[in-house]
């Protein structure tokens, strides 16, 4: 009797098979109650494809796990699973699970919260852009870093020295690189207007091609295309410190009057900003990489903090529609903060709804 009890104790119980939710099909999740014996080797997962009668091994998992994902499932087949506890050379089998078949889903329910957020935010954006279009005056706080752009360009004009524009170490899939390209467009317009040499240096080829187009178009739109030089936008290297080294060389040799460091920056930020500081250039930096902000604040005259980088293009162009979008951004942030505070307060009363914010 005692022997039998030990055997049943080692057989996994409550074996349940479910289709993995929110996937492209081809996967079944099997769960079971772990056995209490900690000296077992692990669990073997066995599968029966109906109408076959035999169970075949599909996987093995360590003793700490009581879940297995069978990624070899075929959507058109129906399966039954059993789990066998392996201890040395002995196997202890569970009863069979429910019949299951895997299937793909058409909507990812784990991402419903983000969909709702995107829809609300899009509505906010459209609403504020419409208000701005109607000519409503929307208050935008002063951003001194962006206000200094004109001053910095003016200084370069007076000194007859170039402007250096560094869009950072991000490829085009970085949102802040795109924001930086938007700012480059505005800076290039002013550069074309005042006829100052520009050096825009890039580390990713795609960013280089986009930057070149932007600067070219800016000159075209200002009616100064004859002043545009291919040399204004340069490709350097993808190597992080090779890029920083090349920029330091450009700063020391060509001695720009103004340096813009706007975009995603990493460990190389201080190397470039300190070199610019050494030659006494006016420096305007901006990044969404929180960690690099202290370095820029230390070595640059003005620093755009995080989201200010995204606001800069709208602020510089003074386009009412773009300013409207900034308002939507602020309102969205306020809404999220309200939700967070509300859910946090609820969690003090043991009502934990914060998990609704989790994105799968």
């Amino acid at each position: 009797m005692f022997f039998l009890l030990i055997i049943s104790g080692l057989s996994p119980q409550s074996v349940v098979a479910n289709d993995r939710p929110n996937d492209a099909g081809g996967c079944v999740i099997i769960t079971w109650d772990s056995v209490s014996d900690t000296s077992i080797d692990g669990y073997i997962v066995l599968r029966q494809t109906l109408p076959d009668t035999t169970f075949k091994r599909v996987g093995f998992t360590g003793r700490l796990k009581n879940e297995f994902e069978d990624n070899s499932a075929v959507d058109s087949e129906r399966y039954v699973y059993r789990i066998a506890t392996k201890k040395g050379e002995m196997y202890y089998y569970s009863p069979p699970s429910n019949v299951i078949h895997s299937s793909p889903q058409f909507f990812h329910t784990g991402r419903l919260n983000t969909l709702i957020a995107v829809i609300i935010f899009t509505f906010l954006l459209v609403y504020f852009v419409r208000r701005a279009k109607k000519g409503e005056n929307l208050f935008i706080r002063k951003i001194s870093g962006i206000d200094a752009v004109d001053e910095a360009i003016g200084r370069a004009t007076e000194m007859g020295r170039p402007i250096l524009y560094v869009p950072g170490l991000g490829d085009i899939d970085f949102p802040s690189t795109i924001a930086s390209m938007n700012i480059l467009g505005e800076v290039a317009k002013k550069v074309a207007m005042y006829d100052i040499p520009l050096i825009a240096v890039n580390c990713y080829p795609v960013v280089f091609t986009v930057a070149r187009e932007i600067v070219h178009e800016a000159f075209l739109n200002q009616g100064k295309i004859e002043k545009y030089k291919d040399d204004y936008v340069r490709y350097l290297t993808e190597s992080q410190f090779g890029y920083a080294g090349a920029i330091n060389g450009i700063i020391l040799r060509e001695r720009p009057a103004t340096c813009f460091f706007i975009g995603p920056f990493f460990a190389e930020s201080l190397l470039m900003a300190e070199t610019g500081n050494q030659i006494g250039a006016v420096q305007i930096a901006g990044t969404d990489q929180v960690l690099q902000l202290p370095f820029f604040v230390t070595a640059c005259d003005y620093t755009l903090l995080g989201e200010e980088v995204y606001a800069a293009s709208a602020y510089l162009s003074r386009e009412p529609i773009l300013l409207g979008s900034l308002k939507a951004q602020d309102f969205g942030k306020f809404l999220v903060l309200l939700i967070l505070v509300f859910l946090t307060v609820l969690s003090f009363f043991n009502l934990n709804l914060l998990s609704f914010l989790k994105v799968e």
Partner: protein
Amino acid sequence: MKQRLPLFICLVVGLLMVIQFYIPHPVSVGFNSIINKWVVILSAFALVLGIGNLVSHHISKIKKAKADRWYSLVTLISMTLMALVGLVFGIGPDSLYQKIFLNILTPLGATMFALLAYYMASAAYRAFRVRNIEASILLASAFVVMLGFMPIGQFLHPYFPQVAEWIMRVPNMASQRGILFGVAFGSIATALKIILGIERSWLGSGK
């Protein structure tokens, strides 16, 4: 037309990519996979343009006999040499390419990164001054964090590592999250503005 076509492509592809994020079906996954492969292929074409620009810039510098033309010459020779060595002798583990990489590029890169220590020391010396209350708080926290993360910190006082860890985990993280919220909204807004054609500076027109 020159502006409308890119805006239209941006709108269609942007919306499709947003939609596919919410659909786990194999058709949607396949579409995502195709788009990602296209990105890789397009990047390769852009690289050709990038290298073309690098070569033409440095050749024109050499032709104009500028004072710093020697740097351009070194760049062009190094680039060509590395490409040739890789193409002719391969890039396997014991190849000449790997030897040059490990024995020249590695120390050069390490040297550049090491310079950061020098710049940090001089920047810290210049910036950490007790000019006002905020600067003093910043200085005090910097001291605690530096000592706490140094092995010697725990010998000065066993609480140093814990306080340093707390500063990193609580006040530092709180401020980071504040900025990250703004950044997240900024990037969502930028993406939406570009997809919806509200932001057009990236086309160079600004209108």
